[in-house]
């Protein structure tokens, strides 16, 4: 049977997730719960409705068509719908019926074949720019069967592949994926085990072990560090990061710093609260300083 997976977005002409011009495929579902997560719609493995309030006409169609009665209008005066996410099955009928596109179902099931036909639309772009496809998420390793099938299909067609991962997956899964992917983008979040658990919901020992493994297997890796003020940009974390990077130097192509930015609005659309206090983006100066320090060990453009 054709392998299927759940993805929540396919972004074309993507230029920040690996070399050249790429198509980024966002897998839905992630074992981590990073408080600053930029793609909260990628956390749940199930399709779920997202609500864009500014588009809502208040016409009431969604409430009328919802098979489980999950959508209600509090009163006749209340212009906007409320969704009881406990009752919601993610069937998407509301999104289908919504005239203005205020309800959008994030997450759809795709076959490898569908995925490849989308990727091939930009084959000329990959050729010219030495780009390809990046599997991101969510967590691509969280849907290993689908990821492996997609990677194999890409390999057959000589499409360059990148796997953008949190590294939190059984080492066996990583071992299956490693020879098929041309490059890994590997995230390093808080270095302290306790901090990692507190801010992402999972320990980091396995993650670090997996990174060591990848390096040992000689697979090309770029390390990416989300720079969260007060969490990953503290002196202590930077020092721990530096000593880990020093241990792995030579096995890592480069380190990229991803400065924090606020995505509170996305959480509202999913009916969730954003777990981060209001923080400002790290200053250019701080970024420059950190890059210079890391560059002493591993290139950090």
């Amino acid at each position: 049977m054709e392998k299927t997976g759940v993805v929540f977005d396919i972004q074309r002409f993507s230029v920040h997730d690996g070399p050249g011009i790429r198509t980024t495929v966002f897998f839905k579902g992630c074992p981590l719960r990073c408080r600053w997560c930029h793609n909260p719609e990628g956390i749940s493995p199930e399709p779920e409705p997202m609500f864009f309030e500014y588009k809502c006409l208040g016409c009431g169609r969604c409430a009328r068509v919802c098979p489980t009665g999950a959508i209600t209008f509090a009163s006749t005066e209340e212009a906007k719908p409320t969704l009881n996410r406990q009752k919601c099955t993610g069937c998407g009928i509301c999104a289908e019926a919504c005239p203005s596109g205020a309800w959008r179902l994030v997450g759809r099931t795709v076959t490898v074949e569908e995925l490849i036909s989308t990727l091939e639309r930009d084959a000329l772009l990959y050729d010219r720019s030495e780009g390809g496809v990046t599997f991101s998420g969510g967590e691509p390793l969280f849907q290993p069967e689908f990821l492996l099938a997609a990677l194999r299909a890409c390999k057959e067609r000589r499409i360059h592949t990148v796997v953008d991962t949190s590294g939190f997956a059984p080492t066996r899964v990583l071992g299956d994926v490693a020879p098929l992917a041309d490059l890994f983008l590997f995230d390093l979040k808080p270095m302290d085990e306790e901090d990692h658990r507190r801010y992402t919901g999972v320990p980091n020992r396995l993650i670090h072990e997996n990174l060591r493994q990848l390096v040992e297997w000689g697979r090309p890796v770029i390390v990416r560090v989300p720079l969260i003020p007060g969490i990953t940009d503290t002196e202590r974390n930077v020092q721990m990061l530096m000593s880990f990077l020093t241990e792995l130097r030579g096995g890592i192509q480069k380190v990229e710093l991803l400065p924090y930015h606020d995505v509170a609005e996305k959480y509202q659309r999913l009916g969730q609260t954003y777990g981060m206090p209001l923080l400002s983006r790290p200053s250019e100066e701080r970024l420059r300083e950190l890059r210079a320090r890391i560059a002493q060990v591993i290139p950090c453009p």
Partner: protein
Amino acid sequence: MSVHLEAEKRRKAIRPGSARIARLREESVRAAVRISLERARLITEFYQSGQVQGLPVPVQRALAFKYLMERVSLPVEEGQLIVGLRGTGPKEVPTYPEICVHSLADLEILDSRENMPYRVDEETRRFYAEEIIPFWRGKSMRDLIFEHLPPEWIAAYEAGVWTEFMEQRAPGHTAGGERVFRMGLLDIKEEIARVLSGLDPADPEYYEKRSELQAMDIAADALLIYASRYAKKLEEMAKETTDPLRREELEKMAEICRWVPARAPRTFWEALQHYWFIHVGVTYETNPWDSFSPGRIDQHLYPFYKRDIEEGRLTREQAKELLQAFWLKFNNQPAVPKVGVTAEESFTYNDFSKLNLGGLRADGSDGVNDLSYLILEVLEEMRTLQPNTAVLISSKTPDRFLIRALEAVAPGFGEPPLFNFDGVIVKMLRQGKTLEDARTAGVSGCVETGAFGKECYILTGYLNLPKILEITLHNGLDPRTGKKIGIETGDPREFRSYEELWQAFLRQLEYFVRVKMKGNDIIEALYAHHLPVPFLSLWIEDCVRNARDYNAGGARYNTQYLQIVGLGTLANALSALKFHVFERRTFTMEEVLRALDADFSGAHEITRQILLNKSPRYGEDDDYADTIAKAIVDEAVRVVESFPPTPVRKASRRVYFLPTTVHVYFGKVTGATPDGRKAGFPVSEGVSPVQGTDRRGIAAVFRSVAKCDWDKTGGALLNQKLAPDLLADEENLKKLAQLIRVFFNMGGHHVQFNVVSAELLREAQKRPQDFQDLMVRVAGYSDYFVNLPRGLQEEIIARTEHRHW
């Protein structure tokens, strides 16, 4: 990037080189646009005198041109290095009453309108009232045209199904080729004499040919007179000046005017002056569409530049200053003032003279040279409204030139646009041009391909596709006026399938194109007979050899174009009907029609939202809608090309897809459309997706556009808006260059970028006084944002801004 930072960055981008150029630029930019009475007065005096009665028409026209050249003012901008100017001074625009007579009301509107006024003084108004209007009313080309056109043509024109290019401006739309830079007027006079002596009196056209050649010879003399008047004036100025440096310059300029345009230019400076005299001549003779242009300027000027540099006559800096001085000459010649509908269809001072850079040489080798780079530098430093540029990219063009051009795009003035030159060659070859003529071709106006210097390719008017769908959906009726202006193609409520709707639309399209083509033939004959252009004919091959006027089919190649508008709106409208009425059956046709007739008011708003948001759309790489767009392009080409060559010029019939600013006017006269567009809103422009609907990113837009077979057309205009941050670094420029290469590999013809944020445009609307210099891309040209009419401003803001990639 903040709005203030963005505005500041743009201002800093302008940095004209020398103090002289900076001052000339400032004067040119600041000068108010005025109507200059002189030409209209002279031409009226000339014809009033009755001295040419009984002479053949071409000879009359040539003598009229000579009368002008002997008498018009000889303005010299203080410190300029190139002389000659159409009009009495910078931005003083003449009128052409023999082509189109402005009424007193027209003059009043021009003088008083808020956007892009043309100042009209009392004397001009008085002279118009007393002499010009009484003499030309009923005799001008415009009056003759409307007198001869059939009622069905007039009905469609008044309903806004099309516009007519030739009602106010003469056929033109041509660019100079090699001949312009290699021949002096004395050489051409010799050629005329040779052809004249070879004429056979037994030739049935002997008389016409002889008259035309005589007219050409007189026209050549006319410009010689103009140039020698300038030489004399410069010599006098040299004597009077106290500045020794300027005296030397003026003497040099006088010397140049004694050599060109009589003889072929020998130096870079002479070449620029030579061309400019011809440009002034062409634009004094008539008010041709898109004025005139030096075409492939880096190719033409390079031999002069190279020799001057090698022989130590010229430095790169001097060449640059000369080019900048040359640049400002274009800016000092705004478009001629229009009346009525035409004023709205192309609402701009821009006269569309387009300088082409790059491309290939006649032998097929890469055309990029030192001047291509130098001229990009001039463009970056000047940033004036005119002239326009075009960068021609072939598979042989080096990446560094493309990236250099994108660097010039980055500050956000909309220039230069980029063209697929390999595609230009395919288009030319398909139309039967030789390989060499195809390789020396280029793009003029907005995006129009033509064999430069060898082709008379005349644009005849814009066609409003969404309006034709509206008429189809009302079985031949124009719902806005209640008049029946189309044919009966059936009650759409009874259509069983999408195919029936599509066929009805095609029949309606065929009907309107037939009426338009009939009108084109009438107008072509009128121009051929009443308005020959012996001066322009000197420069376009093979008019002299054929002893035939440019307007009568003398050029080597003759083509006639219809410009199609509203592809995106029509594709989305048909897609919505196909999807919701014939497939999903979300609505019945009756329900959609009722919603359209109600302009989606009240409860129909829900219907609008569904049609707008829940239908496959062109521009998102969705084959469902893109297949419809492709079919529209194929069928438009088929229908127009099915008509035989024109009677007089034997011109083949072709299509362009471009709008200038007419999509705003077409929107005003078109009711609500099934894509969810409300009545009166602009239709889509060029071949761009409907404003604000292309949400799948620029790569998807390029894919959608490239699915259509543009090689069968003469060109297609695509606008894209980018957030300024996107072009901020070298890495992104490189990736954009790669994307453009792929777009062209896939068959795209053209793309141009507005690099401006919606926030900045909104800010400029609030405080126009602070943003007088904010230049943005409109259609095939750039313009000052705050001068645009509000509808157009809103339309530009509504275009999707690609913020991420």
